[in-house]
């Protein structure tokens, strides 16, 4: 085995979030040579899920990759790196991802809240890893950069919200027309 991997910032090979049936909610692959097709990716995720969901063991080695993971209620978070990768670096990424989401979702790290704030989740992942490079590892920084307001979406609220925006816009229009009239 080549003990020395080429020194590189490309640490993370893949990150994914699965639900408690092993379905993909979000996943990003950063190494184009690793599972180029969707089918391979989903097979890999299923395999990882089957091997890890029963015991909360934090770390495993599957399909030639080191995988660190964490679960919360009905969610499973995974970060995968090469066999030579520093396991603690991968752990740092996983912890940052989990802590950031936990703060953003006000500790409700469960499937429904996550899906209701999916845009925020995409943004958080984007702030932590960029193309396989660890961009940020401090959850506080991530939250500040994303600057996302959480919402508890129910149908009523959204339609209410829509109504409100409409009214607001109408008002602006009225105001500005008044403004013009004055001039």
């Amino acid at each position, binding site marked *: 085995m080549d*003990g020395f991997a080429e*020194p*590189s910032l490309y640490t993370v090979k893949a990150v994914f979030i699965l639900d408690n049936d092993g379905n993909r909610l979000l996943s990003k692959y950063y190494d184009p040579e690793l599972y180029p097709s969707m089918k391979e990716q989903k097979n890999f995720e299923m395999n990882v899920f089957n*091997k890890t969901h029963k015991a909360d063991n*934090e*770390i*495993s*080695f599957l*399909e030639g990759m080191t995988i660190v993971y964490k679960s919360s209620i009905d969610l499973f978070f995974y970060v995968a790196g090469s066999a030579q990768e520093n396991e603690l*670096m991968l752990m740092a990424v996983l912890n940052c991802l989990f802590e950031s989401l936990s703060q953003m979702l006000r500790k409700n790290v469960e499937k429904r809240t996550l899906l209701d704030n999916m845009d925020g989740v995409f943004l958080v992942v984007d702030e932590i890893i960029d193309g396989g490079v660890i961009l940020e590892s401090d959850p506080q920084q991530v939250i500040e950069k994303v600057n996302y307001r959480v919402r508890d979406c129910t149908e009523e609220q959204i339609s209410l919200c829509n109504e409100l925006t409409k009214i607001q816009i109408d008002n602006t229009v009225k105001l500005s027309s008044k403004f013009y009239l004055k001039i």
Partner: protein
Amino acid sequence: MIKKFDKKDEESGSGSNPFQHLEKSAVLQEARIFNETPINPRRCLHILTKIIYLLNQGEHFGTTEATEAFFAMTRLFQSNDQTLRRMCYLTIKEMANISEDVIIVTSSLTKDMTGKEDVYRGPAIRALCRITDTTMLQAIERYMKQAIVDKVPSVSSSALVSSLHMVKMSFDVVKRWVNEAQEAASSDNIMVQYHALGLLYHLRKNDRLAVTKMLNKFTKSGLKSPFAYCMMIRIASKLLEETEGGHDSPLFDFIESCLRNKHEMVVYEAASAIVHMPKCTARELAPAVSVLQLFCSSPKAALRYAAVRTLNKVAMKHPSAVTACNLDLENLITDSNRSIATLAITTLLKTGSESSVDRLMKQISSFVSEISDEFKVVVVQAISALCQKYPRKHSVMMNFLSNMLRDDGGFEYKRAIVDCIISIIEENPESKETGLAHLCEFIEDCEHTVLATKILHMLGKEGPRTPTPSKYIRFIFNRVVLESEAVRAAAVSALAKFGAQNDDLLPSVLVLMQRCMMDSDDEVRDRATFYMNVLQQKQKALNAAYIFNGLSVSVPGLEKSLHQYTLEPSEKPFDMKTVPLATAPITEQKTEIAPMATSKLPEKLAPARQDIYQEQLAAIPEFKGLGPLFKSSEPVQLTEAETEYVVRCIKHTFANHMIFQFDCTNTLNDQLLQRVQVQMEPSESYEVLHYVPAPSLHYSQPNSCYSLVRLPEDDPTAVSCTFSCTMKYLVRDCDPNTGEPDDDGYDDEYVLEDLEVTVADHIQKVLKPNFGAAWEEIGDEFEKEETFALATVRTLDEAVNNIISFLGMQPCERSDKVPENKNSHVLFLAGVFRGGHDVLVRARLALADGVTMQVTVRSTDENVVDVILASVG
């Protein structure tokens, strides 16, 4: 509009997925509201999220629909909603490869990246660099330089990381930003530091001097970021490896000092780097091992895992260094994380004494069914190593392996077990019969064709030489009745070997062959008919040539030669000798006792090295008509490390010629070399026919030049020669930054080290699986024998290795291994001499004061025998 919250989902509770029933067409339909004025940020945000979600699920978007959605999305830049804008950036990145004309957003992104809103600037840079190609990069270069040194950390980090991504695409442009990256490296922000260091290294990694300087600077100034420290440790250990620097080097001191860093991540990285260093002594390992020992009792599973995995690696090379940790490892045997437990046990198996083996094996068999295949392979590898260490334990191991073989498991796992059993059989003659019996049982119910054929091959090789060969016949013939074509064919070949070697079995084998001739598959029928006819001749030489020792040519080479032959029909029959020989003997690959499963990414079938050379050389018009490539040597370095130019030579041998391929690298970034060639002065009657210069040699882009040499025809025994080599070229100075060369240059030359051609360059290794049969086949027509005294050699092992490397021939029948405590040994070597003459060497060695060696050489050509004996003497 928000159809996703239909009644059913609402009822099924909070676990349901609001995105579950999304339809791409419906979402794209909804995306039309992007065009409405005024923009409703909330609704648009929701639709963008749905689009990204769909892309993430692997939904396929056609170019037209993607482009349409993308263009609609560009309108959303008019809104000032922060999250919406950020989602636009994400959409741009996701769609960069599916939509057309993504560069349309360039100006919007450039505006955001240079604007006042800091929250937009970083993400905008990253999105912009994602859609920028080489031609566009010039246009944004100015902004990128500014962004790299920006005082806002997120902006600087984004610019650095994006630059790193673009190094692959346009190295030359990004290289010009090195000063800015340098400035960013002294930033206070830990992530900026890390990213700047990474970029600087990628830009300078071909320039060892610059990397060394950079490391010195940062080790002195000290960095804050633990990530940056890890990166520095990796760079330092790579430098140490390349320069083969001793452990008194400041680089090693730096790595060792990191063992006292306050971050566990850095400490672990340093320990792991020390452990992986080649030629590390036990004393240097000790501090690394003791920090790993501490980690073994950490409450964090990842840390325990990392520690025990690294200790496992140490135990491969220095088991004694790990003995101190045995107690900590014992505690991990019952770890709830089975990966950790497995690693702990396999480490203990390597470090522990023979007496603890049974206990550990019992422990591991209690949970072997719970662990993943990857770790089962680790267990098998540990057992394989153990069998070599304690040969007496083979019965316990064999038993354990056969139990594992019966359990469920994937192909990789089964293959590891089979390889392990085969290597035990080969190492340890006592275990042969039990091992073969287990393998026989396994193929009775084996779904993997590859393994079944491998085992049948093994049975054919080893079975006939056991005391009762007849008992294997039943297992083999069962395969002919029950299995797929490939396995049936392999079984027929195995049967033939029994018939050829055991006269009393021959009649029954012939009867079975007769039945196989009625098989439904033509390959099986062909093989049976062929073997039937060979066996009926009852001639030893035929058996040796066609049953025991198969073809030794390279398969792609054979394919190419046959194709060539069919293109140019001629009266002459096809000559097997025109086919290049296979370089690596295929059959005797030993099971690698590699550290745990290295990367198991899909193995690409790489063509053999020699086939690549054959192609490359055939493409050069000057080298037409030399015949097939006979042998390519390993590269020989002709310069010292760290010189201005690095040159290595590969010697290609043909029937009557040799081509010397010089791979040159220019390590000076202010020079362009042109018309590079290597002048050669031979010491013997070798004649240099032709030089093929390399047209140009740019900085750090290797190129090759060639020399064609004719071998002396009148004196076939002149096999060795020394060439003095000089590299001649035209130098043009150039600007290190742009690579623009001056208009005129001057001629210069550079003296290289001498190049030796030895007898080994004329001989290709060929494996004869049955040496005795091959020996009889060649006959004693040209046999010669001589006795030598090797005064300088002290042990049999050393003598064997010297002879093998000197003659460059293939040891057969595992005769390269000298059993311990023996005073005499017989070494069998096989090869083919240039021109296609088989050569076999039998060397009897006896150890007295020095080593006395009696060499017997047989060949199909008398000259070859003389050459070998002359060169040994």
